[in-house]
């Protein structure tokens, strides 16, 4: 009794702090990634913008604003009991799908790098509905696969099918854009959620087979555009295209490789300052870390990601609530596949797609989405005991 009281006292006291429920390791790792990301965004843009007569802090300022908004969203996501989110999930999902439809309407959606993935807003801001859709899919699937209307410990095939419809509609819309990087990340996360939900193994195996077949058919039948195909081909043979995707990938590898053990020092990378790698504040930001911070710095970034993932798994294991667990796993899978796709592309392990690096790349939508994802994990962590 006294033990429970003690715990309740602790609960109450910590509840009064705004830091209540924050996992210190997870929060610390994310905070470090945000700081490193801010420095890298600044390093990626400072020289070039000042040399070309523009505000050298243009991207820095916007990035800090994005982080501030993202932190506010993360805090909001953390303090509201995530179980209440269930009620809003259909609205969330609906908004996401609507956004994905809007981007496909010419005049409303804008095309960047071959994908119609952006909605332009006044003031030069853009939002990417696919980022929001990721969260909607993860919460929606977690809900459907954790609620039991029948007396069983595992989701039925009907549950799985419902979940697949929830994921499938936005994924199809993203395929039309086409943004294959995001499709890959969402698909991998969906399979992961289904696998951990305890659904019958045939579903996991079947989905994996469908994913492989789908990729083959898409490449053969032209569902994947020529632009996507070029990027894939240069992944297989980097010498095939010397100025386009192949050029970018080679420049990225040279830039990372030239950093060596300790790098050139922050703001001192000639490849970065010369802006030889395109999109280096967004998709190719890891090249800045590679060149200026070297193996030690970029290795540290990988280590921080490892901490984030490990804490995520620990939180997923500890919670008694299947919904919270699946949601945590979904977010962790999203982070993991996205960072693997992004860094893997930079290092030449993955084909070229346009996905940002979580917590580090410049870009509002991505920053908001990843920080909301972080907030969701924290939320589960905060409510997993007591």
């Amino acid at each position: 009794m006294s033990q429970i009281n003690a715990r309740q006292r602790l609960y109450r006291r910590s509840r009064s702090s705004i830091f209540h429920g924050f996992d210190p390791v997870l929060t610390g790792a994310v905070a470090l990634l945000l700081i490193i990301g801010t420095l890298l965004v600044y390093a990626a843009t400072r020289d070039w913008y000042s040399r070309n007569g523009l505000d050298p802090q243009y991207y820095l300022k916007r990035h800090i604003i994005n982080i501030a908004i993202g932190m506010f969203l993360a805090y909001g996501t953390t303090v509201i009991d995530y179980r209440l989110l269930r009620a809003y999930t259909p609205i969330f999902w609906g908004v996401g799908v609507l956004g994905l439809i809007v981007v496909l309407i010419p005049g409303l959606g804008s095309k960047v790098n071959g994908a119609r993935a952006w909605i332009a807003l006044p003031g030069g801001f853009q939002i990417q509905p696919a980022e929001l859709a990721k969260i909607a899919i993860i919460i929606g699937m977690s809900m459907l696969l954790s609620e039991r209307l029948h007396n069983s410990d595992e989701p039925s095939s009907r549950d799985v099918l419902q979940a697949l419809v929830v994921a499938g509609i936005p994924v199809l819309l993203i395929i039309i854009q086409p943004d294959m990087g995001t499709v890959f990340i969402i698909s991998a996360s969906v399979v992961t959620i289904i696998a951990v939900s305890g659904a019958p193994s045939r579903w996991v195996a079947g989905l994996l087979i469908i994913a492989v077949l789908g990729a083959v058919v898409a490449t053969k039948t032209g569902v994947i555009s020529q632009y996507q195909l070029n990027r894939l081909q240069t992944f297989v043979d980097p010498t095939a295209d010397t100025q386009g995707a192949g050029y970018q990938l080679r420049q990225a590898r040279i830039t990372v490789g030239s950093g060596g053990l300790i790098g050139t020092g922050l703001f001192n990378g000639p490849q970065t300052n010369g802006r030889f790698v395109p999109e280096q504040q967004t998709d190719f930001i890891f090249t800045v870390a590679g060149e200026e911070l070297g193996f030690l710095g970029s290795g540290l970034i990988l280590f921080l990601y490892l901490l984030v993932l490990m804490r995520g798994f620990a939180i997923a294991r500890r919670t008694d609530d299947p919904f919270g667990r699946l949601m945590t796993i979904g977010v962790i899978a999203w982070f993991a596949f996205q960072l693997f796709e992004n860094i893997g592309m930079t290092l030449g392990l993955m084909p070229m797609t346009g996905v940002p690096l979580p917590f580090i790349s410049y870009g509002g939508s991505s920053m908001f989405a990843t920080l909301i994802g972080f907030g969701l994990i924290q939320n589960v962590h905060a409510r997993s005991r007591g």
Partner: protein
Amino acid sequence: MNQRSRLNLLVVQILMVSLLVALFGRLFYLQIAAGPKYRDAALSIQSRDVVAPATRGLIVDSSGVPLALNKVGLAITIDRIAIDKQPDKGVAVMKSLSSLLKLKYADIYQNTRLCGELPKGQKAGCWTGSRYQPIPITKEADPDVALQIVERSDQFPGVNAEPIAIRNYPGLAGVNGAHVLGYVGPLTDSDLAKENGKKYFRSETIGKSGLEVMYDSYLRGVPGIRTLIVDRKEAITAQGQNTAPIAGDHLVTSLDVRLQSAVETALADAVKRGRASGYTSDSGAAVVMDIRNGQILAIASYPTYDPNAFEKGLTVQQASDLFSEKKSVPALSRALQGLYAPASTFKSVSVIAAASAGYNLNASYNCPAQIQVGTRAFQNFESKSQGVMSLKKAIAVSCDTIWYRIAFDEWLRDGGLKPKSNPNDYFFKAAQSFNITQKVGIDLPSESTSRLADRAYKKSWFAQNKDFYCNYKDRASKAQQTPFLLLLAQENCVDGDKIRAGDAVNFAIGQGDTVVTPLKLAQMYAAIGNGGTIWQMMVGKAIVKTDGTVVKTMVPKKLGSLSASAATLDFLHGALREVVVSGTGAGVFAGFPIEVSGKTGTAEVFGKNLNGSLKDNTSWFASYAPSKHPRYAVVMMVSQGGFGASTSGVGVRKIYESLFGVKGNKVVPGAAIFPDGKPPTKLPKISPATKPKVAP
């Protein structure tokens, strides 16, 4: 959580850790294992070297008078990066520049294109240097024009006027020296690709020919390098290393500008004299050598060209003229690249051969109008019988039939067409001891190797041509199918590898397949004059640093010695003196106050000129002087110049006049080029301001 969930969670966790490990491993490979490779690749992407060329060393004559120096020119340059940024890519600027400089717009456009930018076959006049250095349109602009460009810089954006170092051959004392000095030019891709361990920089100027190329590594110096870091738009973002250029070393030569000038004039006059006598006289060469050490005091080739033309920029016409047959290929240096039958000058060799064969050099021999050699009669020169005479006289009047007789007899003694296994070969051996088939070793590029028509030559010739002559009807063109040529081909097929009687007798008078360069003949006569030593020929004497320190001295090298005995050489000295006293050279040297020894040569040449006329004889005069204590060897050759004496002999006399300071038939005191009777041995002080001495 059911069992499957728990297991799958573990699998997912392992999968994700594996993904991170994969990234980590790849990162390690790129940055640590392959790091140096990528660092090099990055460096070539970001850095641009700007080369500040070093001041090229001077080339001076033996008393320090500059033959090649550096002049400050006023260059009008175009900055490609600047004009490319203009909306019309600089077209307007280049157009107004072309009217100001009175140059064609098309030339300016072409001159400012990098060679790599232009399609194959349209690269003529392109810029071989880099985009990051100013590209010169002209190097010798009028100061007024340059001033206009500087003052109206707003009208000429990207155009600049600046002083520039240009290579200049000042031509002091009227010297040309194009063939010996050579010229400089921009690096070509093959120069850059040359794996000779030397590191060149794209914008450096290097020696292209003559002494400029032979001593390039000393003359060129070390350029200064400024490394610039650029961005994707090629804008400069930072500066890397910056080293100052180190000036090149000077080359002291054994040439003398006054003598060189005199030799060039004497040669050109000889060619004119030949033409005035009705001979084609297409080209010629002359050389003066110090017979005690092989140093070249003067070397000339005709026709020549303006050595400064390359730095001024060759027009297409000038460039094609250099190699035009009609213009007698002025680019060719006849002294070391031309091969000609030595004719009677070769009788000095035959004297040595006869002596070693046991012929009495002091006996008398008959000089008939012709000698029957097998089935053919070989005529004396101009088919004249000169009666019985001493061998000395035979050399002086250049009797051929005496040598036909001796050579034919010796050929028969060696077995004729069925040679003995160990033939005496006196004639071949005498010639071989002159090192004829070895180069004279001069420090100039592309020296030709002289050819000796001995047994070894015949064998190798046959190996190469047997197939052609034995299948003559199929291989030869229609025009070559005359009955005479068919017969000749048949003969060549049967015994083309053998020395035939005709070959043997021709060999003795320097006709047939034996051909020598004028330098080789000078080296041979120097060896006769100095008592038998064959010296390597050298133009360079020493390499001297800008502060006066001697870096390297070229030590004279003995390449061999003659096999002739002292008595034979004594006889030969007397005979060669007799040529000038009473023989074929007597008229030319009548009254000359310095004793000269020498030999005329008039070589028959087969073949036709471009205009269809038969080729005229090669005119030779090979000599040394003073006869008692010889110091200089002088050889002149005029291709298709006619008689040896009247064309080349007169030219050689003129050279000796300058050398010894002779006016008319008198030595003018103090007028000799080398007042001590020998070329200077001390190295001179080097200054670009040194002027040649003026004779009284």
